[in-house]
């Protein structure tokens, strides 16, 4: 008996977060939708995915106004370091990737975060091409007319 479609979809997001939590110093990772609903999560037993997803939405909402006045309003990557933690909120297609790590974790974690984002993004593009705005879908996106010429 094969896996259902929704299970297979979940597995792809799950792969992205597990790939991150394999890295030394990572406490947990979450993929959440634009409203903070957890899609996939991986991490230590004490890692509260709901809390981090809510944090990502709260921060994005709080800063997008002032950010729009001083820079491009479309937040791509936010990295916060506290005395103990290093929290990354990255936006990919219609989802958020939130990673909680030890503050002292290696900077190369950013490479893994980028790869995970690519996994999430490519899955979104493949599965939901119509809901991704053109500018976010990448510079190589062509209009239909261009494709047919």
């Amino acid at each position: 008996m094969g896996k259902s479609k929704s299970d297979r979809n979940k597995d792809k997001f799950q792969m992205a977060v597990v790939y991150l939590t394999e890295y030394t110093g990572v406490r947990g990772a979450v993929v959440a939708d634009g409203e903070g609903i957890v899609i996939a999560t991986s991490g230590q037993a004490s890692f509260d995915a709901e809390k981090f997803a809510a944090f990502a939405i709260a921060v994005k909402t709080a800063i997008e106004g002032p950010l729009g006045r001083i820079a491009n309003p479309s937040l791509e990557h936010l990295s916060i370091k506290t005395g103990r933690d290093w929290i990354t909120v990255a936006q990919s297609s219609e989802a958020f990737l939130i990673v909680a790590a030890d503050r002292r974790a290696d900077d190369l974690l950013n490479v893994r975060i980028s790869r995970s984002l690519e996994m999430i993004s490519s899955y979104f593009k493949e599965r939901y091409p119509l809901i991704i705005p053109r500018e976010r879908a990448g510079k190589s996106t062509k209009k239909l007319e261009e494709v047919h010429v």
Partner: protein
Amino acid sequence: MIESVEIDDRIEKCERILEADPQSQIFAALADAFRKKGDVQKAYEICMQGLRIHPDYASARIVMAKIHLVKGNYEAAWGELEKAIANGGRTRAIDMLEAEILIRRGRKHEANLIIRNLLATDPDDENVKNLISLMEDETIVGGKSDEDMTSLVALKPEKDRGRDLTLTNAINMLKVMPRVLGILAVGPDGLVLDGRFEGAIHKEEFAALSKGIFDAIKVASEKLHFGTGREVLIETQSSKIWLFAAHKYLLVVHARDDVSLGALRLKIHDLFSDVVI
């Protein structure tokens, strides 16, 4: 003599183009040729007239800054330089012109910081060597020694640099890093304590909004018991904004999106770890 003939030839060509098209941006080259020839007043008139049509033309602003420099109008030269940076960004030529204006205005310490960075990227640059000579000449003519200059021209080892850094010096040194658009030290009230900034937005507004962003993140972090935010890096499609909570101020670093974050982090640590205000 040959140079003079070349300049006359250039003037003739530029005048011909400008006559055919009075809207052409060639006026900047024409004005610069007159400046080089020594006819500063003519250069000024041509450049001023052209800037009325093309006020955002950065190259013309640079020419105008050079004209003011020759005329001894250092404040006006500085104003033109700022407009050039705002319209066309920072280049090595602009850094050199800025250093020269600073020397002429007697701000040799700041000039030296820029020269150090120019030397670091190209130690054999004759133009930079000329700036050092100019600084030495100015010191002798001025009749008084500039302590900062003496200590800095000696090019002290990097490791010793932080110990005598003021906030202003640290900001100036960080500002000359490639792709850094602005640095601000922002007080607890959101007001600018010090900074160097370029761009369309006013530094006061940038400072207040950056402080607002940092505080919003801090509140959200504390609410969910993530601890107090010390450092925030925001990356957008066009730029990066890095916020560091220091003891008495928030350090705001605005950079282009292609800045090297690793090099920037090292430099910030190197410059600001010993700064006391």
